């Protein structure tokens, strides 16, 4: 790993001692819609409106929100795939907001993504071995074949999987392939965007356990994005609830789940159906009713 943070690239807020894995300061992102009128420009969309948080090394950080809340925009910015309109983002203490693509190489090594739909995020015409090795090729690693075998083993797939194509695997196995690909360059941060939302119930538990095992074994920092508060509660130590481009609440997952402070968080928790709630008589009408303490 080649990054030696120089004083010039240190984020303004970073303290002495261990640097935070991710530090986000007052990030905004505005998009412009195509104009619909000749006379005036269309109003901008404020996808992110002053988002700040820090994730220490080794933490499992959850981001919860519904569609349109800005969580995907935030992820793209964290991964260096998009730039904020204002504010700054530091990965391992190095500001990435002003950097060019070539200078972002350390981000590509340190931080990797796992996406929701393993069918559309794996190239159907590449063999699994090549898919997993692709980040290594881009970064000029040697001994790729051995590394691929090691990675497939780590995610619980057989070594002969390397010669097969993505369509020959089930949804859960494909998600294991995405995880193997993400781990290939030995990242320290994994950003998972709804990694289990597309999976069957019996397979979801397997993949969640795999992620937990890997995060422990490799001491990774995990950013886990989901619309499902109960999954985040199981996986993460801390959670940020996003609504309308802002973080409305952060705290330990237990605390946010047990004593939600913001009215939106309360509504979100109240709307989640669970077996326990249903069997104690909570109906669809109750889920829909706005939560009143």
């Amino acid at each position, binding site marked *: 790993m080649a990054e030696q943070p120089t004083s010039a690239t240190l984020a303004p807020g970073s303290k002495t001692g261990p640097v935070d894995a991710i530090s986000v300061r007052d990030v905004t992102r505005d998009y412009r819609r195509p104009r619909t009128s000749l006379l005036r420009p269309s109003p901008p969309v404020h996808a992110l409106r002053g988002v700040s948080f820090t994730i220490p090394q080794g933490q499992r950080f959850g981001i919860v929100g519904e569609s349109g809340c800005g969580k995907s925009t935030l992820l793209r910015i964290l991964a260096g795939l998009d730039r904020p309109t204002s504010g700054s983002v530091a990965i391992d203490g190095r500001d990435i907001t002003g950097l060019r693509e070539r200078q972002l190489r350390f981000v590509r090594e340190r931080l990797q993504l796992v996406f929701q739909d393993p069918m559309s995020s794996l190239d159907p015409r590449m063999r699994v071995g090549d898919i997993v090795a692709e980040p290594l090729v881009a970064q000029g690693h040697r001994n790729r074949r051995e590394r691929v075998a090691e990675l497939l083993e780590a995610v619980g797939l057989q070594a002969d999987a390397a010669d097969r194509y993505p369509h020959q695997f089930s949804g859960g*196995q494909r998600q294991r392939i995405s995880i193997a690909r993400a781990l290939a360059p030995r990242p320290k941060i994994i950003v998972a965007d709804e990694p289990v939302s597309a999976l069957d119930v019996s397979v979801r538990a397997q993949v969640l356990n*795999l992620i937990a095992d890997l995060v422990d074994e490799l001491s990774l920092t995990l950013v886990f994005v989901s619309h499902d508060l109960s999954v985040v509660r199981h996986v993460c130590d801390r959670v940020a609830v996003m609504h309308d481009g802002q973080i409305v609440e952060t705290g330990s997952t237990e605390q946010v789940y047990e004593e939600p402070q913001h009215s939106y968080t309360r*509504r*979100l928790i109240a709307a989640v*159906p669970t*077996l*326990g709630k*249903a069997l104690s008589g909570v*109906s*669809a009408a109750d889920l829909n009713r706005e939560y009143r303490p």
Partner: protein
Amino acid sequence: MTAAPDTAPDSGAGSSGSPDDVLAVRNLDVAVGGRKLVEDVDFTIRAGERVGLIGESGSGKSLTALSVMGLLPEGLRATGSVRLAGVDHDLVGADEARMSRVRGKEIAMVFQEPMTALNPTMRVGRQIAEVLLVHRTRPDRASARAAAVELLAQVGLPDPAAAAHAYPHQFSGGQRQRVVLAIALANDPALLVCDEPTTALDVTVQARVLDLIVRGVQDRRSAMLFITHDLAVVATACERVMVMYGGRVVESGPVREVFTRPRHRYTQGLIGASDLTVVDERGRLVTIGGSVPPAGQFPAGCVFRNRCASATEVCATRPEWVPTGPDSGYACFHPVSEPVSEPVSESGARGTGMTTNKEAGRG
């Protein structure tokens, strides 16, 4: 025959059982070539009853719904019998002309993806009015339009008159699903079939749409068949549940019964795996080993035996349906032993049908 309830008429496909029965499915098979994808499905839904059908992908739950609607894709063939109250012919094998008189009137359906269910080039008010005019339940355009606005109001769209003039792309996902629901409920169907209607929606929107669906069928005393992979959603919206795996109904019964005291090993595993609050000493979730085989490649005998830790040689033969009540029963040689009263959250975690994660992804 597996799920034959004791009320099943001896003559089979002929008459329907009790006068309250809305839908009677008997010995339904769906096959492609020589391969059976759905086998021996057998159930009855009465007026006002809400029945859930749960299962993972490839379990045959959507094919069951599509055969009820007569919408099976080309190449798939249903056999058996599907009778609907008020329709004087069997729905299995009925031609398109007859089915189109039933669909949208006697049976209506809400699909998972509202954008593909709606016509993108037609204003939604006209799409709702269309279903009323086609089935001649409203005498003329003007009254059909008025009814459409009324239906949009019933599904809670703000400013229904303006909404009727909008195109589907102008709505959000949840609003579109409400439009689809308005179309489905327009002719007060005897049976509403919902196939994963809230899976693509956000949680707060899901709560809204679920509430509207349940209220919609309650107001009309319609029967409902609700298909989903989400146990919690079924438990919230339905009174009775059928668990499908490998093209067969492996267990059925009242929601409370099945989810607190599952008898089939698969149901037990499913409940365990979906409970995110029960973990082992390492903080890991309970899982079912292996993965769902591709359609048509389930083992002979008990379809779950290659993933079941309780399986023995006897499971290579097909387990008989063991009735435990008029609408409940299971098909398993090694059922979970008779209930000790225990809280829900623990019921799935015990037993032997589980493995830890490390073996899980292999094979």
